[in-house]
């Protein structure tokens, strides 16, 4: 799972490994991420998951090989 910006700074790295069920949805992935890395709590609460470079609805199933990224507290411009 890819991290950027303040989320990556909070945990000190730009990707985290996460073990989830085979048919886990994006919502379940976010919950697992918050549990596994408590420092990601505020980012999980305010952010969204992108799967393969597109924002994903919370019920989308994440499959093996998908590129999953936490998009939180963006600050472009």
């Amino acid at each position, binding site marked *: 799972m890819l991290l950027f910006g303040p989320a990556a700074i909070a945990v000190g790295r730009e990707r985290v490994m996460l073990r989830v069920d085979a048919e886990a949805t994006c919502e379940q992935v976010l919950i697992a991420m918050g549990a596994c890395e408590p420092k990601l709590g505020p980012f999980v609460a305010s952010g969204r998951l992108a799967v393969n*470079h597109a924002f994903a609805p919370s019920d989308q199933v994440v499959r093996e090989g998908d590129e999953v990224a936490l998009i939180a507290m*963006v600050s*472009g411009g």
Partner: protein
Amino acid sequence: MSVEIHIVEGAVGVETTAAAPGAGAVLVFDGVVRGVEEGRDLAALEYEVYEPMASQQLGALAADVVRSHGLMGLRCIHSRGRVGVGKCSLRVTICSAHRAEALAGMGEFIDRLKRDVPIWKKPIWV
């Protein structure tokens, strides 16, 4: 209607804009790095851009704003990497028939860019 998205290394340079044929209004917004953030002196901002998602999001957002405001064109140039104080990190150029839709479309495009596009800035203090 036309949409252009560019992610460039470092500051956005100076350029001249030709109006789209038939346009009555050309509106150009430059976002410039300010020298003070949170009361501290800044040397630069460092932009992190998640590609290809950022360009795809910008393109979809531009197309949506062009369609909903009836614009003739929208071009967006955003920096990646380091941009010094006083330099431009974002330029948005809108061509339209009249000024009202250019102003409204500009406001909406930048608001949504700051909310929905995976770009992050990090302050580099003096």
